[in-house]
C-alpha cells in the first residue's frame, strides 16, 4: 500500500465517521423517524476495499449497516442523507431508509431485510455476469443456512465472490460463543474457498486482498468494534478500540501530519455543508 492509498483510506474513513456522527445527532434530535444502522468504528473496512478495487468497480450486495460502503464506493452523500431521512423527493420516494440503501450508479444493490439473503443473490449475479462481486454480512447473518449453502456453491463452482464478514462478536448483544462453536473461515475453507480471520487494520485487509486471485471465492472474517448500536443507543465496550484513530496515528508517525490535517479540514467543510 503506497502513501496515496493510505491517505485515501484515511480520507474515506474520516468522512464516513463524521457522516455517521451527523446521522446519530439527527436521530438523537428526533429528526429521523426510521431505525438507523451506524457503522461507527468499522469504517476502515469499506474504505480499504474501495481504495483497493476503485469506486464503481465491483457490484455490492450488503444489508443494513452499509452507509460506509455507499460512501466509500463513490455514492453521493447528499443522496444517502436523503434516503436515510426518507426524503420523499429522492429517486426512491424515501422508501430506502437506513436499512436498505442502494445506488445504481455505484452498482450497490438494495436489501430485502432478510438477513444474509444478499449472499446467494450475489453468487447468482456473479455467476450470470461472470464478474467478481462483493457481499457483506455480519457475524450473525453469516450463520444463516442459505449463506453457508452459498459458500458451498461458490467454492465448488469457482464463483468470484468476496464475502466480508464484519465480526464484532455480537448478534444484538448475544456473543458468538453462545451461538456457535465453529469459525466461518474454517467452514469456508472446507467449502474450497480461500479464507482468513483478520483485524480491521487497513494494512492487514490490503495484504489479504492482494493474495486473492479474484476468480474464486474469498471469505474474510474481519474482527471489528462497533461504537454505536442501531440507534446510537450504546457501544460494544466502554473503551472500544478505534481503528480510525490508530490509523491516523500511524500516518502522523511517518510524517504525514500536514496531509492528514488537510484531509480533515476539507472533509469537515463538506460534512458541515451537508448537515446545515
Amino acid at each position, binding site marked *: 500500500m503506497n502513501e496515496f492509498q493510505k491517505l485515501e483510506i484515511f480520507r474515506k474513513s474520516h468522512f464516513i465517521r463524521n457522516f455517521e456522527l451527523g446521522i446519530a445527532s439527527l436521530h438523537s434530535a428526533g429528526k429521523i423517524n426510521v431505525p438507523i444502522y451506524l457503522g461507527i468504528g468499522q469504517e476502515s473496512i469499506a474504505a480499504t476495499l474501495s481504495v483497493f478495487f476503485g469506486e464503481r468497480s465491483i457490484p455490492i*450486495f450488503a444489508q443494513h449497516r452499509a452507509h460506509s460502503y455507499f460512501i466509500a464506493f463513490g455514492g453521493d452523500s447528499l443522496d444517502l442523507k436523503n434516503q436515510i431521512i426518507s426524503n420523499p423527493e429522492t*429517486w*426512491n420516494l424515501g*422508501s*430506502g431508509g437506513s436499512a*436498505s440503501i*442502494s445506488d*445504481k450508479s455505484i452498482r450497490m*444493490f*438494495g436489501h*430485502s*431485510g*432478510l438477513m444474509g*439473503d444478499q*449472499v*446467494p*443473490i*450475489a*453468487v*447468482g*449475479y*456473479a*455467476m*450470470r*455476469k461472470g464478474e467478481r462481486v462483493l457481499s457483506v454480512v455480519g457475524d450473525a447473518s453469516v450463520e444463516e*443456512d*442459505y*449463506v453457508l*449453502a*452459498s459458500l*458451498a*456453491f461458490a467454492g*465448488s463452482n469457482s464463483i468470484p465472490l468476496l464475502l466480508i464478514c464484519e465480526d464484532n462478536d455480537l448478534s444484538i448483544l448475544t456473543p458468538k460463543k453462545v451461538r456457535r462453536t465453529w469459525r466461518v473461515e474454517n467452514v469456508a475453507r472446507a467449502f474450497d474457498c480461500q479464507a482468513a480471520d483478520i483485524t480491521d487494520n487497513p494494512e492487514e485487509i490490503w495484504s489479504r486482498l492482494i493474495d486473492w486471485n479474484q476468480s474464486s471465492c474469498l471469505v474474510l472474517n474481519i474482527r471489528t468494534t462497533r461504537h454505536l448500536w442501531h440507534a446510537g443507543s450504546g457501544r460494544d465496550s466502554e473503551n472500544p478500540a478505534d481503528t480510525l484513530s490508530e490509523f491516523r496515528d500511524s500516518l502522523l508517525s511517518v510524517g504525514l501530519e500536514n496531509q492528514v490535517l488537510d484531509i480533515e479540514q476539507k472533509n469537515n467543510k463538506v460534512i458541515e455543508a451537508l448537515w446545515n
Partner: protein
Amino acid sequence: MELDLASEIRRRTEELIYQRDAVVMGQCLSAVGWVGGTVPELPNHPNIIELSMADVAGGGFAVGAALDDERPVVYIVRYQGFLWYNAISIVNYAAKSFELFGVPCPLLIRAIAMEGSIGPVAGNYHLSLLLRMPGVNVFAPMTKNEWNFALDFHFNDYKRPTVIGEHRLAFPLKEELVNYHGKKSRITILAVGSARLSASKAFQMFQKEGVKVDLFHLFKLQPLIWPDGLVESIAVTGKCLIVDSDYANWGPSENLGFKLSKVLKCRIQVLGLPRRSAGFSTITDNLSPSPQQIVEAARELLT
C-alpha cells in the same frame, strides 16, 4: 405432428437459449426425463445450469442471475411445494426490486405441481403462498396457448418475476381447454388449476343429463384477468361454483368468490382441497375435486 404441452415448453425454452442466451437453472435438470420432457436435452450445455440441492440458496442464485439482466433466466422448481423454500428470495427480493430499488428482476419461474399419493409438499398447488405478495405475476396454465400467453406476458412486463404454476397432468395435453357459455344455463362453473380437468368431465356429465351449465377456465391469476363472458354468465345463472386445486380455506377460490361477490349479486360456492394434509397413500390422499364432487356441489347450489 401436433405437440403436447411438454414438447411446446421444451421448444420455447430451446428458442430462448439459442435466440436470447437464456439460462435454465434448477436441480436435477438432466436427470431421467429432463423434467418431464420440458427441458431441451443439451447435456453439458453452459446455459443449462445444474444447481446444488440447497433450495433456499438456489432461489437466491436464480434471483441474482436475473437481476438487472436482459438475458432471460428460467428457474425450475421441480415440485411446486418446494416453493416454500425457493420462494423466499423470489417474493422478498425479486418481486420488490423494481418497486423499491428501480432495478428489474425478470426471473421466470416454472413451479411444477402433481398429485396422487405423493404427500403434502409435492402434491397439489401451492400458488396461494405467492398470490398475496405484491410484485409477482402468477399464472396456472394447463395448455399450450395458455403457457405461451404467460411467457409472452412475462416478456412484455420484464421487470418482475413471473411464476408459471404448471401441472404434470397437463404435460401430455394437446388440445386447448375451451370455455362453454351457453344460453339459459342454470349454473356457472369457474375452474382453476388441475381441477379444470375434473371440471371438464363434470361438464360432460351434466351435458349427458341435459343440465345446462356454463364452464370457464381461469389461469391468469395475478394480475387477475377473468375469462371472457364469465361475468355475463353469472349475471344470468345467479350461481357460481368455483373449483380449485389449492386449499379452499383462506385460499384462491374463496378469494375469487369474494371478488365476484363484490361485482355481482349471486350465490357462490367454492370447492378446493379440504383443510387437511395429503398423505402418501391413496387412502390418505388429498386430491383436486373429482368430477363427481363437482357435480354434487353444483347440484347443491342448484337446489
